[in-house]
């Protein structure tokens, strides 16, 4: 294991060395950093050109400058990084600029990657299970469209409809009856297709969904829910119950009574704790509180599983603890939505709350209320994340579908079915895990692509991350800055590749990373 990792790291260094050389040469030759000054009529520009030439060492050929830079960058190994200064950013040390940008890009990219894996794999699985259904064709069609969309265009459209128009709607939230009916019909089609079964049962599912969704929307319209959205104890209860059901389904334990019981007790405890937790959220107004509550709820779940698990104790503890921990999410969302009215008053938007630029509202960056800041971050991150996701999800959907279909045709799946295992167990336990093996490789590749996509997304959403730095550096022929970004993103991409290799060996018993 250790030797595998060290060999991979050595190869990585070699790759980074060669790549950095090429990137340095390409950037250094991509333009003339003095060009703006050459074209400026101001009397000062001559003096400025002389200063800049000296600062950038322009009289030295790029190839020698590269080795100077490499010397500084290599000292990172001994903890004394010298990535140079960024002239286009007022001589700011590159390491400084990177530190700021890294945080915002990673939060964006990691969130987008995790969410697209979850959603993409889920959609891919359902399409594989309902192969050649109307749903499958619809998703395939949509996936190809999204896959081929240019991200800058998607981002601009998202802002137009996801922010500007949606905010107008939030300012005056009237839902016409035909919209409610239309949304209901669409969801009815999707849900009934995913659930599947014979025609009668599908019609029944569709009917129930249609009535339910339309009723919810009409109710939301009457109560003006969108004008002042809130979750409250009812919302928390519904969402927690949904999370519990999902956990049971994923772990294919819907029909195992002890597990169902322990999950139900856990969810009940979450709902019961809603009121006392209000005080905790209020008095312990820090992000760590989320962790504390998640651990506590997981412990409640584990206890319930331990006491009620019976023969399935291990599975019950695991499933209930997971359900408890994830139920923290609706509780936090509830806190965020409680501050909606206050938030709307604090932001400069004409109406609504979804922002089109940046990571936070300037005036709220240092607001003392954690939950309000989280709401602010959420309204800012939602669109760029969606832009990055739309395209990634399309890919994941296709790969998962293909991979799962291949696995489902294997002999051992037929054996599993033949020995009478429930279909859910066959899919979740036997097929799904093997289907994930190729996906692991795709994730590593996709992470690099998402970082690349972030360059454009960040520009369109004025999100100040690595992508924005890279674009800025390239535009101003600021070689040090570009190299800094290259180093960080390059290392990140390589690390993800190593992680994928390790995940590979964890998922596939045929692959060993040991020497023997």
């Amino acid at each position: 294991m250790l030797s595998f990792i060290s060999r991979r790291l050595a190869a990585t260094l070699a790759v980074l060395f060669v790549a950095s050389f090429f990137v340095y040469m390409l950037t250094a030759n991509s333009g003339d950093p003095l060009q703006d000054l050459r074209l400026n009529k101001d009397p000062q520009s001559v003096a400025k050109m002389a200063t800049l030439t000296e600062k950038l060492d322009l009289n030295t050929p790029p190839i020698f400058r590269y080795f100077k830079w490499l010397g500084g960058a290599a000292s990172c190994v001994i903890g004394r990084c010298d990535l140079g200064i960024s002239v286009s950013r007022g001589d700011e040390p590159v390491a400084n600029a990177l530190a700021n940008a890294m945080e915002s890009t990673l939060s964006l990219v990691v969130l987008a990657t995790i969410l697209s894996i979850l959603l993409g794999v889920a959609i891919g699985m359902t399409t594989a299970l309902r192969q050649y259904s109307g749903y499958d064709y619809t998703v395939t069609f949509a996936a190809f469209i999204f896959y081929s969309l240019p991200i800058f265009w998607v981002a601009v459209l998202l802002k137009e409809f996801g922010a500007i128009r949606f905010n107008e709607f939030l300012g005056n939230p009237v839902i016409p009856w035909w919209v409610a009916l239309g949304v209901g019909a669409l969801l009815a089609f999707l849900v009934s297709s995913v659930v599947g079964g014979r025609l009668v049962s599908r019609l029944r599912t569709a009917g129930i969904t249609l009535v339910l969704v339309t009723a919810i929307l009409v109710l939301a319209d009457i109560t003006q829910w969108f004008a002042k959205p809130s979750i409250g104890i009812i919302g928390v209860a519904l969402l927690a119950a949904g999370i519990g059901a999902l956990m049971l389904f994923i772990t294919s334990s819907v029909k195992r009574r002890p597990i169902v019981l322990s999950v139900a007790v856990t969810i009940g405890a979450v709902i019961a704790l809603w009121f006392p937790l209000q005080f905790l959220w209020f008095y312990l107004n820090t992000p760590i509180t989320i962790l504390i509550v998640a651990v506590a709820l997981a412990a409640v779940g584990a206890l319930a599983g331990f006491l009620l698990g019976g023969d399935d104790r291990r599975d019950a503890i695991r499933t209930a603890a997971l359900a408890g921990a994830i139920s923290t999410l609706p509780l936090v969302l509830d806190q965020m939505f409680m501050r909606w009215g206050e938030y709307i008053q604090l932001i400069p938007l004409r109406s609504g709350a979804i922002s089109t630029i940046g990571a936070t509202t300037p005036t709220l960056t240092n607001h003392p209320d954690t939950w309000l800041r989280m709401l602010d971050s959420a309204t800012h991150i939602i669109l760029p994340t969606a832009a990055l996701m739309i395209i990634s999800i399309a890919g994941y959907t296709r790969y998962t579908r293909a991979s799962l279909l291949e696995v489902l045709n294997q002999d051992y799946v037929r054996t599993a079915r033949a020995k009478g295992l429930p279909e859910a167990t066959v899919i979740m336990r036997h097929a799904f895990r093997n289907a994930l093996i190729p996906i692991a490789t795709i994730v590593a590749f996709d992470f690099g692509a998402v970082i690349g996509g972030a360059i454009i997304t960040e520009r369109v959403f004025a999100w100040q991350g690595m992508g924005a730095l890279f674009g800025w550096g390239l535009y101003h022929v600021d070689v040090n800055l570009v190299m800094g970004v290259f180093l960080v993103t390059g290392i990140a991409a390589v690390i993800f590749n190593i992680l994928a290799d390790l995940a590979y060996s964890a998922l596939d018993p045929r692959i060993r990373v040991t020497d023997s």
Partner: protein
Amino acid sequence: MKFKRILATVAALGASAVVLSGCALPYQSQVIKDTAITVAWNDIASEFNSASASGNNVSNSIVTYIANSGFNYYDETPALQKSEDFGTYEKVSDEPLTVKYTVNDNVKWSDGVDVDSADLLLSWVVGYGYFKNDDGTYLFQHAAPRDDLASKLPTLNGGTIQYEYDKAFVDWELNYGLGVSAHGTVMMAYPEITDPAEAKKKFIDAVTAGDTKWLQKVADVWNTGYQVTDATAADTDPAEGSKKYVFLSNGPYRVEEVVADDHVTLVANPLYAWGPSPKYERITIREIGDPTAAVQAVDNGDVQAASGQPTADLLALVKGLKNGSYAGGDEAAFEHVDLTFDNGGPFDPATYGGDEAKALAVRQAFLLSIPRDQILDNIIKPLNPDAQLRNALTVVPGSPNYDTVVAGNGSDFFGGTDAERVAKAKDLLASAGVKTPVTVKFWYPEGNVRRGQEFELIQANALQSGFNVVDTSEPDWLFTDPSVFPINPHDAVIFAWSSTSLAISGNDQMYGMDKDGNAKPSNFQHYKNQDVVDNLAALETETDPAKQAELQTTIEKSLFDDAASLPIFQFPGLTWWDNGVEGITPAPLSPNYFWNFWEWSPAAAAQ
């Protein structure tokens, strides 16, 4: 909301009463409590000393402009306006050129310390590169130190500085202004000094005594100590913030919060009483690099004003703003075609065996063949309906001398309609006896859509008068780099000169040559005319405005008579804003639409 409107009305009434009565009432703040405006710029300030080599860029200058008062500023004309509520300046004598700057008595830094001659001295020392290191570099790394202009220490008195130039200098008015505080800089360098008066005194003494050893620490702070990328409201507090000295200001606002690459928030300075009062309590500048994003941000209400280079697409988007307005206007850059004099091409006399007259006729004919009207009408007017042809090379349209210079610079030779000009070009070519078609290697930056369109128009039009214009575009502007091309390989090039001031000097870089007769660095066309060189040198030291205009006219006359270069149009600009804001007016020169920030106010309708 209603209360605010009443407040605003009262304030407006008060202000107009002052104007009507014509007498100077004590200053009345018109800042409306709890009002804030967020505006966009394509970059965010990261240094609060905008005079240093590292801090001298537009985004830093905008913040220092808003946070500080100055002796003068550019309005939207563009013309230089004086701020006499802050201070005054005058030329004391012509021979030698001596000037005197006085800051008014009541002017204070945001920590309550007087703005006085110590601060003026610091700005003088850095701007004229008075101190140098042993290796010849400047102790204070100013963006463009001019130690060639002044070298005698000024005399100080209270809030006054008076100093002598070593030679007369045409742009003396633009060459000096107040920068960062002296006591703040000294106290950051020597934290043991706690009394501002002591700091000022020690600084003045050190400068007088030439104590560079003591000044070294002060210079270090001046050079890099103002680089701050993050600061909270607690850090910037003028009384006890940890970075209070960095953010000392002497203007309508002070910096309250800085978040790297995201925004800078400025808050009204309660001490300010020496100039027009601003209306908003807070101004936040956010970074938005992409102009389309900035339009959508105004549409959504994320920001209330933004600006950018217009394209047809951008203009369409801006026109579609439901609650927004926009204004075009000129930018400071202007498009022009330059002809190359020494590359063995059609415009080089050497091609015709040294026949200057023949080469001149070909140059004139080619410049006449440029369809200026078509370019203006088809490409620029859709973006800026008020756009006009520019008829001067060294003077900005709208600036005081422009009309005088245009009347006498011979640019009317290139007047008339496109068709008339083509006819004239044909005649010239015929009478010169040049064999047509003449091949012209024409460069424009490859990938630049607008210039690509201009090239096509020029190519089609010039064909009529007998020129075969060949596309030699490349994207890297290699001809501007003398190390690649000592001689410009293109016969004609089209690009823009940009400027950020109304400086009269500096044109020798484009049209002059040095003592050895070599073209100066930005004279890519290698235009060489001794009269122009002499007149440019004379202009540099001419302080009489009437004679300046005369010299400028003579210089331009030579340039147009030699058919060296032809100006076409001023770059169009585009500024758009939310209708909830009043008073936003674009301006061509830096700080662009920020120039009248004190007039920005919440619109009555939006309250």
